[in-house]
């Protein structure tokens, strides 16, 4: 059967690659459609038409869009993200350090939020209908309803302004001790955990409850199994597929969507870089960031799919 699984996984990977190609197409043309002419903006209002034409020529802006797309795509393939329009620095260099920062924040948040969410979700399902379950449900729904800028702003207000425990800004670069690291990351991580964990808790609980209602879990009960055994040994292995998918969806948010949190804590991450890029109309930068978000999202989703396939003995 493993040839079959290999085939399934290959198909998933091919679909991911195809999606990436389509997205790159969309990203390129969406940014190309932005109003205004890049050369005019770069040179300012006073530029002579000759200068603008010369710059357009140098930047290949006078070529048909499809040719530019192919040119850009082949650059991406060979790892060349292009050069920033604004300061002539390679986009790869601009992104490099920022990307590491974003991944670090995402990684720490994931390390913290995934175990928390799974534990809460599974235990809530295990004791469905109990006071504990209701408490978890009410809290998660409450947290889902509060927008992240609210959580982040409140956190700053309480911990930095009134209590003065934590720094309001997260400069990720001047960390020298573990204690400092904790202090710097505490607020962004807590704010992000609020956002991503709630979704994971709800999905995990629902997935586990779905499998608890199956005849094989009832059979386990009638064999004399305890509640934790029923849930952990019988329900959970069959709920892995949906749970992994929920986790991947939530985490994919961390790769690209943390702009609000990055802005509030002034965290030098990639999302903030992209917004800056939009302000200065730095097309190669915007395109590269968008592609990075897309790659991150796709790899998480594809990974979740592959784990779900491997967890199913019917396919294995």
């Amino acid at each position, binding site marked *: 059967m493993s040839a079959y699984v290999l085939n399934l996984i290959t198909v998933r990977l091919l679909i991911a690659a195809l999606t990436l190609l389509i997205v790159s197409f969309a990203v390129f043309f969406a940014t190309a459609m932005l109003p205004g002419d890049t050369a005019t903006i770069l040179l300012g209002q006073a530029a002579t038409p000759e200068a603008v034409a010369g710059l357009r020529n140098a930047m290949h802006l006078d070529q048909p869009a499809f040719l530019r797309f192919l040119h850009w795509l082949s650059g991406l393939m060979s790892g060349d993200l292009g050069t920033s329009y604004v300061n002539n620095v390679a986009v790869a260099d601009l992104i490099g350090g920022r990307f590491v920062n974003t991944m670090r924040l995402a990684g720490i948040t994931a390390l913290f939020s995934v175990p928390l969410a799974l534990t809460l979700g599974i235990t809530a399902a295990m004791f469905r209908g109990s006071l504990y379950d209701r408490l978890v449900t009410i809290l998660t729904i409450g947290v889902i309803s509060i927008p992240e800028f609210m959580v982040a702003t409140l956190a700053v207000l309480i911990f930095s302004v009134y209590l003065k425990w934590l720094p309001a800004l997260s400069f990720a670069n001047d960390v020298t001790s573990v204690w400092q690291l904790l202090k710097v990351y505490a607020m962004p991580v807590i704010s992000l955990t609020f956002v991503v964990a709630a979704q994971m808790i709800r999905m995990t609980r629902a997935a586990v409850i779905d499998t608890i209602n199956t005849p094989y879990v009832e059979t386990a009960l009638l064999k004399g199994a305890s509640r934790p*055994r029923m849930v952990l040994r019988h329900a959970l292995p*069959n709920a892995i597929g949906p749970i992994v998918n929920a986790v991947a969806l939530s985490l994919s948010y961390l790769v690209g969507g943390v702009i609000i949190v990055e802005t509030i804590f002034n965290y030098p991450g990639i999302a903030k870089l992209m917004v800056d890029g939009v302000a200065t109309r730095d097309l190669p930068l915007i395109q590269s960031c968008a592609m990075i978000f897309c790659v991150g999202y796709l790899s998480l989703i594809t990974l979740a799919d592959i784990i779900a396939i491997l967890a199913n003995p019917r396919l294995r």
Partner: protein
Amino acid sequence: MQNLVEIRDLKVEATTDSGRRVEIIKGVNLDIAPGEIVALIGESGSGKTTIALTLLGYARAGCRISGGNVRIAGKDMVTLSERDRAAIRGTEVAYVPQSAAAAFNPAKRIIDQVIEVTRIHRLMPAHEARQKAIGLFRALSLPNPETIGSRYPHQVSGGQLQRLSAAMALISDPKLVIFDEPTTALDVTTQIEVLRAFKSVMKKGGISGIYVSHDLAVVAQIADRIVVLRNGEVQEIGTTADILTRAQHPYTRALLAAFEPQPRGGEILVKDRKVLLEVKDLVAGYGAKHRDGLPLIRAVDEVSLSVEKGRNLGIIGESGCGKSTLARAIAGILPASSGTIIFENRELPSAVRQRSRDQLREMQIVFQYADTALNPEKSIEEILGRPLTFYHGMRGKQREARVGQLLDMVHLPNSLRHRRPQELSGGQKQRVNFARALAAEPKLIICDEITSALDTVVAAAIIDLLKELQRELLLSYIFISHDLSVVEAVCDEIVVMYGGRKVEEITPAHLQAPQHPYSKLLFSSVPKLDPGWLDALELDPELVRSYSKS
């Protein structure tokens, strides 16, 4: 002798969706002696499974035991704490579920699930449990007892899984085993092996059993005593022989009568025999198409048959033999890949889309599950009115009157017309389902397992209705079923299918005995209302093996 089980005045309450409390078990008393097997018989909703589950101190979600005692070896399962109940579950009382396919965890190996009871209750070391399981596999005549446990549930057949679930129940040497319709989901030829295996293991171990079933003939083979239930109350208790031969209660008699429907005999409706439908070399199936236009998986393989006007054709076979696919191919829902369908001397296009409205009207199909065939959002009037408008252009008063006539034909009160399907009972839904086919005024109705989801008594009433309507409207039926007695009651000709092919055609009126070995096996596998039938039955093991799905 001390009784192993003593149920006294047991009451179970269910909470409905609207929050109302309904008593579904209304004071049941029952004793079971050590080594005795007692059957609980009744139709769906009679409370037989609910009573059986109380022996484990368990009531399904929304139900609770509201009164009485359930004593097992002196311990009352009703008053014990959940922890103490869990200690008894699996060790002293074990459960064999209705659908083993659903009761096995798909993500775990079979052996781990079979010996899980010994692990939960710390009965014996794992290697010892494994050896014991293999011994049980052997006793239950499972193939490859040494290695079958290392497979996953989806890798073994339904009949094997059912025996494996018995092994799962027996691993801890329980005093009482509860069998919850363990053979209902199985084909008749498989059912025999499973019943035999159960019976011999239970006898050897001197184990008491509760056998829940709706099938009197199956129960007659295995039970010492039979309890007849209806609406949560005991109607009659007696030894198997007494119930079968000297039933006192009218309901028990109705059950027995429903079991032996009147064979159709040689009733002749139409004098001059005219062929209505002729099917020649029909091939239909699923999956990718080969270059010659034939499907990858041929579910129906070169089947030919014919139906005469006013006569009925039965198609019988076990699950997966292609009988439903044949029905869908004739109706055009699944277009046949090759072969011809001739209806009233004109060839029909293979796909339903290419058939004319009149061709569609003349041939109707009725599906097995009325629950899914009827739109839950529409009232009965709308459901029946739709074909009237579509085929006959009826509207307004005329349509309203016709809906009334149709309801009358299927013996439903006119007051049902404003209800929705979920407000009707299973038998009523199937009648509406059938009335919808009648609305088109067809010449031929294809009935695909229309009685399989119904209780015996209800199914018998539907069969009578079919016969009555045939006399009145000169219909022809193609009647598809896995149940031989039902087919015999309705049909003039019977086609036996196996593996997508027609193996034999039999005309029961001519007292023609089946000739093909598979037909012989199938016909002899149908349980009879005779307690000695299973023990006396001798099947050629070679024959059984060649036609059993491994």
